[in-house]
């Protein structure tokens, strides 16, 4: 019993990651009908922004004196870093292709995914590269800047694994036999808060209405005076910010981040979005938690290494049996 409950909580924690990332896939699919293949890498970029922030805050001793503020800052940095990455990608890699075939857009997204991974991996190299630019005797940057640039680029990225400082440790609360660590509670709480906020945003605000209109029919929405480009950009901003938050969560929970970390959670979150019904926001949340639980259950019966295979198998079976997902209507009518 105790073990079962702990496993369920584990499933819900992992499900929270998937649900948050899946929301980004589903929102982008809603407005653009494209699979944002680079979404998993936006998640990774968010984790790196968070890592950089908390490492710097820990160096100055801020984390010890104000742990709560430090965590909030980390989440904000991760969300904003990822969101800016998201809208930049949309502007330069996807917008020129809006009228092109879906294959061209998907290939561009694959290119973006490779680019982001490699960019984060190579940041320290770029740092030393631009600091070595000089015109004759004179260097492009003054001495003090150069040291700062090298320092920042080396703390930010690189091929090696980066480690989050363990802020929350393994402490937790005990309910009878069952112990739940604070980091799990934090992750589940934050995920649920943001999902509720997103749902309210899409249902109740003017921006949400515009997003729904764009996902329904771009041309008619434009005729009604909606700035379609702005709405798509906003959608990318929100979806990527959620992925960034999930990235920071992943960092806080697993402590280690690497440039390739986005691939597996990305593809699983995509699975979650498909299971719930792609283009459908409550569906993405449901799919995320279902997938998290399915993985935990599969560990009970199969060796743990097979849990990724289970996720892929669910994806394939779902796409074959009901490609519109659990909550998706027929023909993709209930987008967003």
């Amino acid at each position, binding site marked *: 019993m105790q073990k079962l409950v702990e496993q369920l909580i584990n499933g819900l924690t992992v499900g929270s990651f998937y649900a948050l990332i899946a929301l980004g896939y589903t929102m982008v699919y809603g407005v653009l009908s*494209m699979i944002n293949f680079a979404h998993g890498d936006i998640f990774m970029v968010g984790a790196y922004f968070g890592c950089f922030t908390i490492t710097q805050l820990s160096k100055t001793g801020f984390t010890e004196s104000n742990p709560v503020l430090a965590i909030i800052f980390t989440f904000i940095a991760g969300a904003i870093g990822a969101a800016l990455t998201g809208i930049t990608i949309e502007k330069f*890699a996807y917008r020129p292709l809006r009228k092109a075939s*879906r*294959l061209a857009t998907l290939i*561009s997204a694959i*290119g973006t995914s490779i680019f982001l991974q490699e960019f984060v991996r*190579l940041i320290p190299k770029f740092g030393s590269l631009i600091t070595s630019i000089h015109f004759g005797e004179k260097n492009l940057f003054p001495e003090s800047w150069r040291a700062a640039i090298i320092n920042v680029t080396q703390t930010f990225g690189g091929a090696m694994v980066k480690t989050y400082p363990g802020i929350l440790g393994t402490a937790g609360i005990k309910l009878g036999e069952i112990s739940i660590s604070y980091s799990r509670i934090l992750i589940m709480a934050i995920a649920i808060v943001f999902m509720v906020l997103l749902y309210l945003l899409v249902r109740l605000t003017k921006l949400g209405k515009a997003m729904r209109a764009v996902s329904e029919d771009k041309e008619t929405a434009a005729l009604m005076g909606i700035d379609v480009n702005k709405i798509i950009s906003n959608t990318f901003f929100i979806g990527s910010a959620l992925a960034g938050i999930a990235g920071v969560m992943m960092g806080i929970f697993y402590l280690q981040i690497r440039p390739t970390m986005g691939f597996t959670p990305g593809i699983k979150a995509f699975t979650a979005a498909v299971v719930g019904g792609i283009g459908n926001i409550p569906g993405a949340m449901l799919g995320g938690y279902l997938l998290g639980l399915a993985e935990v259950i599969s560990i009970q019966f199969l060796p743990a290494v097979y849990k990724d295979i289970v996720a*892929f*198998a669910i994806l394939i079976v779902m796409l074959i049996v009901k490609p519109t997902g659990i909550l998706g209507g027929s023909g993709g009518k209930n987008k967003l």
Partner: protein
Amino acid sequence: MMKNNSSFLKNILDQKAFRTVLSALISVIILSIPLFNFPQQNLWIRIIGYAGLYIILGLGLLVHVGLAGMFDLGFAAFYAIGAYTCAFLASPHFDLHLPFLAVILIAGALAALIGTLICIPVLKLRGDYLGIVTLGFGEIVRMLLMNLTDITNGSQGIIQIDKPTIFGINFNNSTYFYYFIFALIALLLFLLNRIIHSRTGRAWLAMREDEDVAQMSGIDTSKYKLLAFAIGAFIGGLGGAIFASWQGSIFPDNFNMNVSINILCVIILGGLGNHFGVILGAMALIALPDILRGFSDYRMIIFGLLLIIMMILRPQGFLPRKAPQFEGKSSSSPDHEKEVQS
């Protein structure tokens, strides 16, 4: 000025004479490399031979994506199946030592069989969904290779794979593989050219342009899809078997997602649907980074950027497929070429 330049380049690349000269030039260079002595010759043979291997894989994927319009992001799975079949049948691992020609055919046939089995349930899926399913399949195959340690030896891989002997010639250095690979490419190009201009090729073309219309016109799309998947997978399996026997040892990580993406880049750069473009694409993608050794660190990031820029500026590739000219009127319009397929 910019505009003029790019349309000038476009005109040159689309000229038929230019293509003929280019392919003749490339063939002469390729065939003559092992004949002369020059510094680092062995390295060059390996690099160009490796690019040749990617041409084979590219031709296989071209059948899926370029000819039949079935988006495949897991092509490395067939490559892996071919390589592991070769490793099982011709190494001390199971103590089997079948002759190479048998091994390579079994490898291709097995890949084709598995490809067909995978294709049956996903026949209804289109476009990017099919891409994601095949990606999932590719990852499942790699994870199984990694985790079924009793059979595949896991991440330790399989070593000491036999060097092939064909008609009494023992393939004891890379030059033999080099010529074998390019002979196979010539054969495949010939066969593919025959298929493209046959009933099957026309059915694929119709399917790729518009699946519903093709079905309405009486084309059995399921049959032609399965056929395309089987042929593509067969070629992928051949490539895998050659890779395994050339390298002598294989590991699950030789067949990861990046390999699938590299092969995809090869055919996209070359021009989707053009089997000669694949040669140019493979040379550009596989051989160039090896030639520019100093940039090897930046290889993947340049790939990524190239893919994005390519899709925006020239989505039809360096050497695009020529739209077929039917009697009466020319069917190719500038917009037509841009629609790769959805």
